[in-house]
């Protein structure tokens, strides 16, 4: 018990000053103390300690409601009080001084000249400096090229035909996201469907389709026979936007077209807008190409099947996007 009282007395007491060094001049100007400041800092440190302890307590207690908020408040307040303690220290407890230093921006001409001379003289034994330099640079270049070459293993760099990949084949069944075949009679006007090739991964860029039934007059691009490309008015387009690769997730479908707008497929990223009745022609937005269209067939069980490849390359544009497909 005696030790506890001694410890408290030691902490709270004034503390002995170190013996004055009479042989040395003061480095920092003497400034008056601030007991008020010290008290404020002690209170703030105490509050910070309590906050951090509260954080540990919240952590240990577990299963508290609004746990994340309690964590944030306790930890945040702990650091806030600590910050306040530091700021008060800087204002009231620390000697306030202004000092200066020279910028010393003079260039060191002597040292620069010496370095130049050093490098020059170190090459004094060479007779064919330029040749050696060129040879060294050449080797350095080749070394760099050799070290960088394995980067090419990252991907199929040469000849980007991989970008033309289109796995749709004539006769492939269209299925919904659950894997159920899409029936022509199930494609009602006014709604839109996402379809995939049966049995294939949904994660290929060419795989997702958006399918709608057009009730307006069809005006497909030249060369696309409506029997092949829009049987019974049903059209299918790649669901991947030709601008920047997002999924065409919006279908503007008017209940009363006369007083509103015509149907359109829209992309949520930059609002590229495509006309399903006109081969997904771009109506608005930054897309530079219409959506590729997939020809369709209706089999004898009224199920939708692909009628061949897409009309163009799928996804965002690159240099060869308007050229033929693999």
């Amino acid at each position, binding site marked *: 018990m005696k030790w506890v009282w001694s410890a408290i007395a030691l902490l709270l007491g004034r503390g002995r000053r170190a013996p004055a060094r009479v042989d040395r001049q003061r480095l920092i100007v003497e400034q008056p103390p601030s007991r008020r400041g010290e008290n404020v800092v002690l209170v703030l440190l105490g509050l910070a300690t309590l906050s951090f302890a509260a954080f540990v307590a919240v952590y240990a207690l577990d299963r508290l409601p609004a746990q*994340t*908020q309690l964590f*944030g408040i306790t930890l945040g307040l702990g650091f806030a009080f600590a*910050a306040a303690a530091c*700021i008060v220290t*800087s204002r009231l407890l620390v000697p*306030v001084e*202004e000092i200066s230093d020279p910028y010393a921006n003079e260039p060191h001409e002597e040292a620069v000249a010496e370095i130049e001379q050093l490098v020059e003289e170190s090459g004094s034994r060479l007779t064919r400096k330029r040749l050696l330099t060129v040879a060294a640079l050449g080797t350095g270049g080749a070394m760099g090229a050799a070290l960088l070459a394995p980067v090419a293993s990252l991907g199929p760099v040469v000849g980007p035909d991989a970008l033309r990949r289109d796995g749709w084949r004539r006769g492939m069944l269209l299925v919904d*996201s659950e894997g159920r075949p899409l029936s022509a009679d*199930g494609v*009602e006007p*006014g*709604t*839109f*469907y*996402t379809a995939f090739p049966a049995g294939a991964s949904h994660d290929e860029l060419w795989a997702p389709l958006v399918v709608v039934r057009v009730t307006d007059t069809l005006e497909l691009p030249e060369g696309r026979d409506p029997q092949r490309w829009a049987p019974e008015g049903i059209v299918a387009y790649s669901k991947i936007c030709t601008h920047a690769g997002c*999924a065409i*997730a*919006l*279908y*503007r*479908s*008017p*209940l*009363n077209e*006369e*007083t*509103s*707008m015509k149907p*359109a497929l*829209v992309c*949520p990223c930059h*609002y590229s*807008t495509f006309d399903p009745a006109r081969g997904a022609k771009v*109506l*608005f*937005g930054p897309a530079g190409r219409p959506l590729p269209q997939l020809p369709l067939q209706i089999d004898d069980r009224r199920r939708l099947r692909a009628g061949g490849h897409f009309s163009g390359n799928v996804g965002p544009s690159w240099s060869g996007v308007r050229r033929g497909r693999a």
Partner: protein
Amino acid sequence: MVRVALVVVAALTLAAGASAANGRDLYFANCVWCHGDRLQGVPASGPSLQGAGALAADFYLRTGYMPLRSPRQKPTRRPPHFTEPELRALISFVAAHGGPPVPRVHPERGNLAAGLELFTEHCAGCHQMAGAGGIVTGTSVPSLRSATATQVAQAVRIGPYLMPRFGEQAITPRQLDSLVRYVLYTDHPRNRGGWAIGDLGPFPEGIVAWLVAGIALLALARVIGEGLER
């Protein structure tokens, strides 16, 4: 006894006749301009309401999307234009011209995860994953925060204004239960992280980063960096 019965019957018929006449009067006072005197629709104004049923009438009138002041005006959600008795009268008047009834949904029977997947595939592109609304080219898309379970079901089946319609083949009644359950969930999602700032993602987050953190830290810098007295 017979006299009492006769009086009661007469009173009921009068009342029924009065409400039917009420609905008809309301229709002719508010709707006939665009939808026609036989609900057949008017070209370049309003669609036919024959076969629209209570499904549509109840939806449009209770959400305030109808009546519109002009055919090209964009419908916006507002308090209903009519009182409750007027609503009921008008709805039964329209329903009397045929069409589906007000749908009954059971969100409590639905599966939340199934609802999330359905919502992502069919709805999120326009309405945003948390039902906060957004835009489609040419119009804005309403938030789903005030939509009741019935209204969600109605909208799904009708496809009002520029929204696609989803019939029972596209979204089965069971799927609709799950979808509605998810939509209702997004009204009060589990925001474990604190204040949800609209569930809109980086847009409000950026505002907070600048206007809360940015300003607070600028203020802190000013407090700390107060210059020495010259």
